[in-house]
């Protein structure tokens, strides 16, 4: 099948060799705007890292990096259908050969580099030219609207992709030697109210792997293409290939062309223009000669560029509809500074207790052993084990935003080991982060034993400007309860009495009366119910509970599960391997030094 047709029909999976973040990003933007569900770039072969972060739509994705083609996992390897070679002219030849040896079934590729030696180009033509569609060396690549953006073609700026209507397939093929003019023509087609069937920048080098003739053959056999728009320059004999194809009816669709370079006539000697090929060596290589030859074969070739644009506007186009895109939303997207995965699903907190029935199993030997170790004797009640199990489950992680997780991740990205990174996270635990379970237990114990009324207790705290531990949340409030607190509160129904829990709820009534955010939080509810359970189900006296509080036992119920969470974030960072973390300038406020 015509590889352009194949690109429209099959799944596009691109392997990029070398790095050029702006180009890769533009491909992902094109994919998203074209309505794809996943990026077409499946991997980058660069030696730096394990992954690079890009936007896909408004969100971000990590594209895996590989040090060489050999180490790409099979499941990724199986998908690859196109090569995007972004390496320098020094390495382009070798890496292209290696790519097509590894992916003989690929459809084609693009070589971005300028400065690929002629000898290498002709060798690529010899070994790959007849089998694959390869744009370049040099130029900006290949575009099949809505399907494939292979290179910088069509621009790297979101607004350009949108303005040139790249997601919408049409009937006009754009072929050009010049990368910049390919883009100019793509835009001109869109501005003329038409859309592209495909666009290819052949590249300004002397020996493009896929030649102009072959590109025309593709345009001829492509059922979607109804007309060809061509930009050529002085130098080389390529345009005579079009002339031959038109005369011999091997190309039968309308051609509108502009051949640049009459300026050469203003020079005494022929000048080497921007592209390698742009030098007149023979009389028939002049812009004028080529233009006249095209005309004689039936093509429309404008004298001036504006004239050429007028002719372009006359070409036919079928009906199409552009996808609506909210570009403002895109322009406002902001890069994240840390990437991690979601370790616990907070949307679906499990139900531990339903009515008076315990749903949590509480039969984990591991949890029971932990409790025995901490409490100094085997647990008697299933409720105790089930409660500990539920707390451990809920507290493994609370997202990558929290300070302990952030410290773990930053340490991991600094290249440190597991224990150092974990320690860095654990050392963050204290009065403001995760260390409030024990403090809350102390307040509830004091409240219940001292027979202090909840209102008095709150009053005495606020008088000296202290907060009540176990109370208050940044996000949740009255009317928007914390699902974890809800889930754990169910345990109260399993107990005969629950004075600590009752006291905590009474305190909450007082505080929420002042501010809806001052609800009983996860630390507070864990502390209260653990006190009640240890008292009722395990028979610990008030004095024994006091000893546990003095030994900070209640914080252990946070430290134990959260260590798992920190380790998960550590492992994730090692997998992502995004390199040393640095706070972006705009997120840091630096006070000016005082001038004396």
């Amino acid at each position, binding site marked *: 099948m015509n590889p352009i047709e194949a690109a429209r029909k099959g799944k596009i999976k691109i392997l990029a060799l070398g790095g050029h973040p702006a180009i890769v990003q533009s491909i992902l933007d094109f994919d998203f705007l074209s309505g794809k569900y996943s990026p077409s770039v499946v991997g980058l072969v660069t030696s730096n890292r394990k992954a690079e972060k890009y936007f896909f739509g408004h969100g971000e994705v990590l594209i895996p990096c590989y040090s060489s083609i050999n180490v790409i996992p099979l499941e990724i390897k199986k998908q690859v259908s196109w090569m995007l070679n972004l390496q320098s002219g020094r390495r382009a030849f070798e890496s292209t050969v290696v790519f097509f040896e590894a992916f003989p079934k690929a459809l084609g590729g693009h070589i971005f580099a300028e400065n690929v*030696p*002629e*000898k290498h180009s002709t060798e690529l033509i010899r070994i790959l030219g007849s089998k694959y569609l390869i744009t370049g060396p040099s130029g900006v690549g290949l575009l099949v609207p809505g399907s494939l953006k292979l290179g910088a073609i069509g621009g790297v700026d979101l607004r350009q992709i949108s303005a040139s209507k790249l997601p919408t397939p049409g009937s006009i093929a754009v072929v050009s030697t010049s990368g910049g003019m390919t883009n100019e023509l793509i835009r001109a087609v869109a501005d003329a109210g038409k859309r592209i069937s495909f666009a290819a920048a052949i590249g300004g080098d002397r020996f493009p792997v896929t030649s102009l003739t072959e590109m025309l053959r593709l345009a001829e056999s492509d059922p979607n293409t109804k007309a060809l728009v061509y930009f050529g320059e002085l130098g080389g004999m390529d345009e005579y290939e079009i002339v031959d194809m038109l005369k011999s009816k091997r190309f039968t669709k309308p051609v509108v062309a502009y051949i640049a370079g009459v300026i050469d006539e203003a020079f005494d000697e022929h000048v080497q223009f921007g592209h390698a090929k742009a030098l007149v060596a023979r009389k028939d290589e002049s812009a004028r000669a080529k233009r006249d030859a095209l005309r004689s074969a039936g093509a429309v070739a404008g004298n001036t560029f504006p004239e050429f644009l007028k002719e372009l506007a006359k070409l036919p186009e079928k009906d199409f509809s552009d996808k609506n895109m909210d570009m403002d939303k895109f322009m406002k997207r902001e890069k994240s500074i840390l990437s991690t995965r979601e370790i616990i699903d907070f949307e679906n907190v499990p139900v531990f207790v339903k009515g008076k029935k315990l749903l949590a199993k509480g039969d984990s030997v591991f949890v029971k052993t932990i409790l025995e170790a901490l409490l100094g004797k085997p647990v008697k009640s299933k409720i105790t084990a089930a409660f500990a199990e539920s707390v451990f489950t809920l507290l493994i992680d609370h997202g990558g935003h929290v300070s302990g997780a952030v410290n773990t991740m930053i340490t991991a990205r600094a290249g440190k080991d597991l224990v150092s990174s974990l320690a860095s996270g654990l050392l963050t635990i204290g009065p403001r982060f995760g260390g409030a379970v024990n403090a809350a237990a102390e307040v509830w114990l004091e409240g219940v034993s001292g027979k202090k009324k909840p209102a008095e207790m709150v009053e005495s705290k606020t008088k000296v400007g202290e907060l009540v531990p176990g109370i208050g949340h940044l996000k949740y409030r009255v009317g928007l309860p914390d699902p974890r607190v809800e889930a754990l509160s169910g345990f109260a129904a399993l107990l005969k009495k629950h004075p600590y829990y009752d006291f905590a709820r009474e305190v909450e009534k007082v505080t929420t009366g002042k501010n809806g955010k001052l609800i009983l939080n996860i630390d507070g509810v864990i502390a209260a119910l653990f006190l009640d359970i240890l008292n009722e189900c395990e028979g610990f006296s008030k004095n024994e509970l006091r000893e546990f509080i003095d030994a900070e036992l209640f914080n252990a119920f946070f430290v134990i599960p959260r260590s798992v969470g920190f380790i998960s974030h550590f492992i994730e960072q090692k997998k992502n391997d995004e390199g040393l973390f640095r706070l972006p300038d705009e997120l840091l406020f630096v006070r000016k030094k005082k001038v004396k």
Partner: protein
Amino acid sequence: MSRIKLTEYRAKKLLLGETYHGISIRQGEPVKLPKSVCFVIKVDQGVKKRMKKGLVLLDQSPAGISRAVSKWRKKGFSRFLAEPLLGHKEGDEQYVSFERVREGIRFMHAKAGGIEIESRPEAVKTFVLRNDFDMKTAAQKTKLPESFLKHALEVFENNFFAFLEINPLVVANGKTHILDAAVLVDSAGTFFVKNSWTEDDIIEKTGNARAEKNIADLAKTSPASFKLTVLNPNGSLFFLLSGGGGSIVVADEAELRGVGKEIGNYGEYSGGPTREETYLYAKEIIGLLIKSKAKRKALVLAGGVANFTDVKQTFMGIIDALSESAISLRKSGVKVFVRRGGPNEHEGLELMKIFLKKEKILGSVYGSETVITKAVDDAINFIKR
């Protein structure tokens, strides 16, 4: 990137190795020549039709060489080549050339070579050499020694030649003698060649303006691309263009509207240069514009819709250069006309517009919604006024 001329000296040294006895004479390098031998002395700077121009002298003694060299130096030449004179019969002169083409190496041969070859194109036979077999066939048909063809092709491949012409090639008693050799090498091969040619063996265009040389130096040290050719130093239209193709379209418009002779320079920058690189490039062109004695002068800052060159970054570099000369530009009534598109187009154009307005040198500013030739059209109307 492009095909560049190698000196005859280096070309022959690569082809003949130790057996070559030519001596390269450069500026300020004293050369000792054996007194007993007769020499050919020639200018070695890729000049076409040297013989007719009197830049080759046969049968010279060392003293004659000194005289010829000092005379040619006064004419501005700087590279010369002295070779022991080789006597031969004119009938032994043949013509061969090799050129890299898409399909392989195009080999051309004529039984009767010499300087008149161009007037007898029908005498030239063409072969395309793709492999050993093609080479052997060509050797048989041309009756050239196979070893000679094989060796020439090897040198061609190993040294990243793009074109090699030997005319005349003297074939006598099964031996070949290379009397003259012209070589174009592929500049992209610079990184790959070893014990071969270097930058020093490349012939630079004669009469290069200083600005051209500065830009060539800039291009050498940047992954981006910079080109500059001075056309009419006293022109009224100066071009600060971007993109290999777009720059020609803009320049074409000037030629098509009949002001080709007014064009001060052609050039382009592309491939995502940094702000600093663009500043250095713009500075040279502004310098040329200021030096021009034309009465009405315009600067055209135009290009297509860039794929990945950042308009804002490059425009900031151009603004840096323009601000250095803003007073002088304003005093001589220069106006700047802009058309450009690409990444960060809006921001770049806005910056430029505000700057040009502030400095009172604003001609017009257009973005990608306007045709690429609009700025140059405005500039032409301005200089014609």
